[in-house]
């Protein structure tokens, strides 16, 4: 519990001062809260005395009492308001900062990270776990400390008036802590199962949503449903399991404190009898006996929450401390844009230590301003080569240099600002078309966006949409065809206007009627740039300054089309097949 507490305080970081300031105010708030009870006890003492002795009480007592208690209310309000002001928003401020930090780190992680960590895990960390932290983190720390402060204030008073009563209170609090520790341990043991189940449910929900179409086409809704239902049931079980562990401890915690309060009254009565306690003090203890521990009694919830929060924080930390690929990188401005692979090997790890080498000692260079076509069968490692240039992964051995600089010397930002990439699978954000095109070219004017769209030949179909450039696209918006989405992604790359262009099979994915137009757009995109293209179309390959023929992670041939076409080897056969592939129907 202390660990979780420390962790939360560490997470709060520089805002710690405000947290502690709040605690100091809590002490005084506790006093202001307890005071009316003392006043009433003192009054009851007066009343009993007067009843016994038959004397009259001061006529103004009622009004003095009202004023005093009203004063307590005012002080309590002022203090708790002040405390809220300095303390309550800490969690939200830190959660927002953490979201930004994580967002930044996510961008700088190697893509391999996403292959080993499920989207559901990352999602629930950034959403559910951080939501819990911002809602509960500071509140629980405050509840825990606040309750002990309140109990501490009264216990301190007990020690002053009757050390024996003080000891009873102290022992009760101590014993109760043991059950709290029990609650915390139990939660630490059982709540990860619920967390995992929650993450699984997150993942299953995403899979369910994505699989809806497939489920409909195959009528196999069961295959889609089963993992979801399993996750739901798993979560139900995990939660009930926690409840079974929690309830007995919670009950004993409260019971210990309640029995202690009865003992407190007995001890106080003995004190009264022996004459060591004044009547009003005794009455005060009797009054308090029913409520003195109620704050601590509620702490079982906090203890339970603490384990949960600890787990949340651990997950957030794990994500925030994932090593960015460019940790040692510097912001370097490149002055030339040639690309060089120097004896590069690369393996995909599966996260369990199992590796699969896909690139074997590849060396080549692409001079600035030239076009390099990479050809080869699918699965031969073409996409991996381009991913290594953009440092989506780090090489296992050898080096990739851009403008003479090892890509590992640069930060992701300073490296990738030199790249315009068009991927084979287009991803559009759930945003307007204009925003999707301007993505990565912040501050672009509408005019520039339209210009890029015109050059990428998407202006016409965008203008035909009811909301034009302000049409929202994304997963739900089935209004765009694959080819249209592809062209939007080309417009995006055009607008970015980076010196190095990487195309991954872009030319193959456009409708026939657009192919020539798109070819012009791509010509514009690649003019005067250093271009690396994973090529399938013979026109592209033929016009390249250099062709790399890749097979099974190795470069098996290289040169210009004229050279390669003349020498017997893989390329010749490759071209022959491509000729057929492009022409066989005719």
């Amino acid at each position, binding site marked *: 519990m202390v660990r979780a507490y420390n962790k939360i305080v560490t997470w709060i970081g520089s805002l710690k001062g405000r947290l502690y300031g709040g605690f100091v105010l809590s002490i005084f708030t506790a006093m202001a809260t307890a005071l009316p009870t003392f006043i009433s006890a003192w009054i009851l003492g007066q009343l009993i005395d007067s009843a016994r002795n038959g004397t009259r009480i001061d006529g103004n007592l009622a009004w003095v009492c009202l004023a005093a208690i009203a004063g307590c209310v005012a002080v309590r309000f002022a203090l708790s308001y002040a405390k809220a002001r300095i303390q309550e928003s800490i969690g939200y401020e830190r959660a927002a900062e953490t979201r930004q930090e994580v967002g930044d780190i996510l961008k700088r992680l190697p893509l391999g990270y996403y292959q080993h960590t499920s989207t559901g895990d990352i999602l629930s960390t950034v959403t559910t776990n951080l939501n819990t932290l911002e809602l509960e983190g500071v509140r629980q720390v405050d509840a825990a400390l606040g309750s002990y402060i309140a109990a501490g204030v009264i216990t301190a008073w007990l020690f002053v008036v009757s050390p024996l009563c003080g000891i009873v209170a102290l022992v009760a609090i101590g014993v109760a802590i043991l059950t709290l520790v029990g609650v915390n341990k139990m939660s630490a043991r059982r709540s990860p199962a619920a967390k995992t189940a929650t993450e699984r449910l997150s993942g299953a929900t995403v899979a369910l949503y994505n699989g809806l179409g497939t489920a409909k*086409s195959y009528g196999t809704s069961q295959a889609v449903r089963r993992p979801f239902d399993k996750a*739901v049931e798993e979560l139900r079980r995990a939660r009930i399991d926690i409840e079974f562990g929690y309830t007995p401890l919670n*009950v004993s915690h409260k019971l210990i404190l309640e029995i202690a309060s009865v003992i407190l009254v007995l001890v106080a009565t003995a004190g009264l009898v022996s004459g060591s306690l004044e009547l009003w003090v005794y009455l005060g203890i009797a009054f308090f006996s029913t409520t003195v521990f109620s704050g601590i009694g509620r702490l079982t919830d906090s203890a339970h929450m603490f384990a949960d929060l600890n787990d949340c924080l651990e997950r957030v930390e794990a994500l925030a401390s994932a090593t960015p690929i460019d940790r040692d990188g510097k912001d370097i401005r490149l002055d030339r844009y040639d690309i060089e692979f120097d004896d590069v090997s690369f393996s995909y790890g599966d996260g369990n230590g199992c590796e699969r080498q896909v690139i074997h000692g590849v060396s080549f260079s692409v001079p600035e301003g030239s076009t390099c076509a990479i050809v080869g069968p699918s699965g031969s490692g073409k996409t991996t080569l381009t991913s290594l240039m953009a440092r989506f992964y780090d090489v296992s051995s050898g080096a990739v240099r851009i403008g003479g600089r090892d890509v590992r010397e640069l930060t992701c930002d300073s490296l990738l600002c030199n790249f315009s990439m068009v991927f084979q699978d287009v991803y559009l954000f*759930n945003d307007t078309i204009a925003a999707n095109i301007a993505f990565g070219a912040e501050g672009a004017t509408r005019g520039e966006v339209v210009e890029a769209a015109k050059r990428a030949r998407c202006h016409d179909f965008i203008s035909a949409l009811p909301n034009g450039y302000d049409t929202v696209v994304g997963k739900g918006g089935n209004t765009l065809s694959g080819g249209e989405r592809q062209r939007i992604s080309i417009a995006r790359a055009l607008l970015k206007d980076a010196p190095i262009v990487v195309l991954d099979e872009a030319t193959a*994915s456009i409708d026939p009627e657009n192919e020539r137009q798109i070819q012009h757009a791509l010509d514009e995109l690649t003019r005067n740039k250093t271009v690396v293209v994973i090529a399938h179309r013979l026109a592209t390959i033929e016009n390249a300054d250099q062709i790399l023929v890749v097979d099974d992670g190795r470069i098996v041939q290289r040169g210009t089309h004229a050279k390669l076409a003349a020498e017997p080897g893989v390329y010749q*056969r490759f071209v022959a097949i491509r000729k057929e592939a492009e022409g066989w129907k005719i």
Partner: protein
Amino acid sequence: MILAEVLSVASVFLGLVPFYAVYRIIEVVAATTDDIYASWDAILFWSVVSIASYVLQRVFFGLSTINAHISAYTILGTLREGVATKLMNASLGTAQDKTIGNLKNLVVDKIEKIEIPLAHMIPELSANLLLALAIAIWLAIIDWRIALSCLLTVPIGLLVMGLGMQNYYKMYDGYLKEQDRVNSVVVEYIEGIRVVKAFNQATNSYKKFSDAVSSFLKFTLSWMKSSWIPQHLAMSIIPTTLLGVAPVGILLFEMGDITAPEFGLSCVLALAVVTPVTYLGASFNEINLISYAIADAREFLDLPELPQPAERAVPSGAEVKFDDVHFSYREGKEALSGVSIEASSGSFVALVGPSGSGKSTIARLIARHWDVDSGSITIGGVDVRSMPLSQLSDLVSYVSQDDYLLDGTLLDNIRMGRPDATEEEAMAAAQAASCEEFIKRLPQGWDTPSGEAGRMLSGGERQRVCIARAILKDAPIVVFDEATAFADPENEARIQRSVAQLSKGKTLIVIAHRLSTIVAANTIYVIEDGSVVAQGGHDDLLRECKLYSSMWEAHTGASTWAVGDGGASKAFASKAQEVDARWCAHTIRLSLG
């Protein structure tokens, strides 16, 4: 739930006993002037009664809690499954109108939040309400003026709170919207991480993400700030029940209407009422939470389902016919305006047209991902709306552009086509779809989890897995939406061979993005702007349809090595196989050489 409630109420009333005990003890002490030892028995007796009632109270409380939680979590599970069922039965369009972040937030987070009100509030709220009432009645028995003075703070506090919380619903609405937005943006951010990486430099994080995060913070803070004064004022006033009780008690004592011990009891009861009253105050928030969560769940639970009959229809043959079909994804622009097409049993029909012309929409409508606005789609003479969805899916294999590999291994995914198929049959289907070579390449082979496979396989390879699934399913109608992306020629040839395997003896409808694949079709429909502008064989269309011939020209023009005209009309299947055989021969030679 009822048991939980009864136990909870019992535990609350047992909780009153110690207060009474304290009263009796104070009474004893107040009455005794000299010989207090004589009263020890009474004091001890009431102490033991207190402890016993505490123990019983807690046992009841524990049982009640466990019971309530079991019911609550079961209800949550049922709700979640209900949402899933609804999504699966609604039309795809209706389902996809909801963002994935929205759905995740509801299923995972919002429904979870109902747990607190459900498991705690239903039993505890009523118990606390009863407790507060019981205490009030008890106080009224002592003296009705004491009772009034005790509860005086409650209306004052509530008034203050009410004044400050006028905007509560609006603000809470806004809060949830902002939270939704952050969560949806995070989902996108992760899904599009490659684009984010490649395109988003210089800023700390992508703008939409950081905007959503900071606007969420700003909103929350301003909301919190506006509620601090009323909230803390109310929470300072309401629990200070002694504010009324102590002065009024003194006055009543002076008038001789209550005794000193009764004053003591009044104070004790005034303190005891604080817990239930603050609980009730706090539940005000929780009640709002539950109503919001339920409203959210409703949004999904009330989604319109695609109507479907229970009885299987009896279609004659595997002929697909569109009769004057109109359809729009949303109000305004029609995606299809009066499309009539016909694919007779066992024929090969192709749909071509510019992107966005509505070709893929036609495919989706056959699979009834949506319902038509007007007109009809019939299979073997039966309207697709007049047969159960399960029967429709038995009849149609739809291989879409964005088919999705479901959770499970690759083998599981193929088997999805026919769950009762043996492993051998599934492997045979995979072989027919030429998946074998790349599946063998994967370290875990057939047992590779689909998520991992999805990332290791190329788009074409993924589509071949989906084709294998469809081959195994063996439905009489095959609708194949050619992928626009990832078709490099060697993959294309393989996909064509796979489709040829898939469609042997079947009705085949191909949505073609490359004209090359469909020259041999029995009928080619040319679609433009949601209408059929021409139909016929390849040669006829070349002569008669300007759009088609210009597309053809663009296609052949783009292919530098295009040879001759399209006279060949060999069957799609045999042609594809032929090419594939040649490609195989090449690869063999490649690997030998």
